[in-house]
């Protein structure tokens, strides 16, 4: 699976014209959201609502809102980045990458572990809080996170599909899932391969752009910040009392950095921050790192602790 990511990455680095049309990429993204939402929802319908659900949600929100402070501190100490840029980057690392999460789910399954089905809801809960923190950091309250932006950001398509499918999954349960399983369950992993091929191409382009605009200190941040995030995730998971699989997923969420929802929100709310810094960093450095080295580490960490 990761091999397709590497293929896409190499193709983009070699300047091949390989690319997946935007419409297909968007279509696959919607499909993947629906599929994991349904899977998570039917899981919850089957096992009942775990007592840890709310604790895990709360942990996610706290992680997302809290980690930007750490990231911001590290960035302003180690690099001469302007305040807004540091805050913008911090937002990405507080929030999550859903593709990294998908890959971790597959890795967890391949390792024979099981994770709490509601983890997709935790993932959804972790998208936004980091943005609020970062805007506060950037402007000490002067930020433009007005009601319109907040609504636009929180009603973004992928969150709506993910949560909507989660709810539908809860409603229909495992029996309702069966007739659509040949579309949403069986080919899932294959679609993820195709999607990762595409993400590899995008990450490769990000890396190429990044070579021009990123300083070593910032690149380094993109490599050690996931590990710091992982530690916070690990701590939160053991406080909440998640299973080994769930722990691996929460670690991954904490370690991953957003490159879709947060950038879009920041372009509206913090236009002074430069996307030419935060996008290549999250997409070209941290994302490939997590997919290749990170996830195995997080899985080992979770297995070791549990």
């Amino acid at each position, binding site marked *: 699976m990761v091999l397709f990511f590497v293929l896409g990455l190499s193709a983009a680095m070699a300047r091949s014209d390989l690319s997946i049309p935007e419409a297909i990429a968007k279509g696959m993204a919607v499909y993947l959201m629906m599929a994991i939402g349904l899977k998570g929802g039917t899981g919850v319908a089957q096992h009942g609502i775990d007592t840890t659900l709310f604790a895990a949600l709360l942990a996610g929100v706290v992680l997302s809102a809290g980690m930007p402070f750490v990231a911001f501190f590290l960035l302003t100490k180690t690099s001469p980045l302007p305040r807004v840029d540091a805050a913008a980057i911090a937002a990405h690392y507080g929030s999550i990458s859903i593709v990294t999460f998908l890959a971790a789910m597959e890795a967890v399954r391949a390792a024979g572990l099981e994770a709490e089905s509601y983890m997709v809801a935790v993932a959804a809960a972790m998208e936004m809080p980091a943005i609020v923190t970062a805007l506060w950091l950037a402007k000490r309250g002067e930020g433009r996170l007005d009601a319109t932006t907040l609504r*636009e950001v929180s009603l973004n398509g992928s969150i709506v599909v993910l949560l909507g499918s989660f709810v539908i999954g809860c409603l229909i349960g495992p029996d309702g899932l069966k007739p659509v399983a040949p579309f949403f369950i069986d080919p899932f992993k294959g679609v993820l391969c195709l999607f990762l091929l595409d993400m590899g191409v995008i990450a490769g*382009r990000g890396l190429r752009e990044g070579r021009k605009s990123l300083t070593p200190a910032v690149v380094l941040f993109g490599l050690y910040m996931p590990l710091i995030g992982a530690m916070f995730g690990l701590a939160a998971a053991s406080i909440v009392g998640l299973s080994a699989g769930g722990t691996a997923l929460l670690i991954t969420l904490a370690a991953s950095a957003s490159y879709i929802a947060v*950038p879009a929100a920041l372009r*509206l709310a913090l236009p002074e921050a430069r996307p030419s810094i935060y996008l290549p960093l999250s997409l070209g450095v941290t994302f490939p790192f997590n997919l290749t080295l990170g996830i195995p580490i997080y899985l080992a960490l979770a297995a070791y602790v549990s």
Partner: protein
Amino acid sequence: MKMYSKKRIDIMVEAPLMTRVLKLLDDLGVRGYTVLPALAGKGQDGSWHRDGQVGRVGSVVQIFCILDEARVDAVIEPLFKLVSRQIGIVTLSDVQVIRAEHF
């Protein structure tokens, strides 16, 4: 055939800002506009290409509207104010139209 002189405003702006620009045009009472998708581009903020893009950051749309010369100033000032902090450019040019009442 009788033609009327109008102005055409072209706005190239990053996609996340699109809804705001359109809302502004609505609020300013602009009678019509069209949005074209752009495929790729380059500006001061780096180059981008649409294929493979999942999110909307980095990609640009082109919005244009035909309107009366008399209305240009009233529209272009707030427009420029909105766009100037963001990634984007605005141009103005001359066109002629057939149905004057439309614009």
